[in-house]
């Protein structure tokens, strides 16, 4: 069995947000996308802590843009999911499917 390379709950959510946003994924859009879909307030610190962790694991890559005046002369950091990140996502989904197979979950939508 390989090492623990499944995604944690928030890592999972952040990677899915990056996939939804495609090439528009940076701190603001990722945070807003998660808030919009989960209906819970998310801090920018939590988003960056998770993105940095995912980047250390090789699951995402980041690139800085040119600084802009509306951001006080600060740059944006865009993120994208790597093939290693997509493999981790797929593995996590497969595991969840296997674990939920055969269960009659009360919350399951028809």
């Amino acid at each position, binding site marked *: 069995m390989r090492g623990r390379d499944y995604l944690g709950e928030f890592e999972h959510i952040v990677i899915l947000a990056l996939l939804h946003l495609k090439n528009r994924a*940076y*701190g*603001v859009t990722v945070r807003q996308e998660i808030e919009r879909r989960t209906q819970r307030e998310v801090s920018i610190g939590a988003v960056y*802590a998770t993105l940095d962790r995912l980047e250390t694991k090789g699951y995402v890559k980041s690139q800085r843009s040119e600084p802009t005046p509306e951001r006080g002369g600060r740059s944006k950091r865009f993120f994208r999911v790597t093939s290693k990140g997509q493999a981790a996502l797929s593995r996590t989904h497969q595991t969840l499917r296997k674990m939920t197979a055969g269960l009659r979950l009360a919350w399951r939508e028809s």
Partner: protein
Amino acid sequence: MTSRPNLNSPPRSAEWLVSLFANTEDEILGDLSEEFSLLASQSGNAFARKWYWRQTLKSLPHLVFSVFHESPWLTTVAVAAGFLLRRLVARLPEFATFALVDKFHIFEHHFSVYKFLASTAIDIEHALTFLLVGCVVGLLAKKREMAAAIALAMIFGAMAVLGSVSYVIRGGDYTSLWRLSWYFTDALAVVVGGVIVRTARLKAADRIPSIS
């Protein structure tokens, strides 16, 4: 003429707090600034400022813990070095004070001064040595000054609480618990040392938001 805070810009002290803890370039401050402008135009400045503060306070624990995850060894070495340095300089305030007392015969000639030097002055000197320790930890921890200083302060704080509780249980002397306020001041001094080094580094890199 007094300067008034610019209500159209994010709260400066919140920006300063984020810059102390963020281990990234400027993207977090840029993101917060962008969302602040949007919220201020949609819902007003008061709402946007409250949002900014909420985001700042909710972000800080994540920013501190992410440093431990990124550089566990460097942070641990800095904390351990701070702990050892503290042990090394622990007795210096007493030595220095009593050397002064002996040299100038303070006990014999100025008893009230002696009382001050032997009690409050030593406590203040201890706080200053903790401040020095915090600065050294900040220097060793490179860009992770705040996480290392906070970790060390928490260790000292926990030791003070455990030591005091154990002393009270053994001796039954609850009045000694007031000493905890000095011990917490020492722990706070370590954090202030980290803040000083971090602020100096940000100033050197011209990345510090001005607090006005």
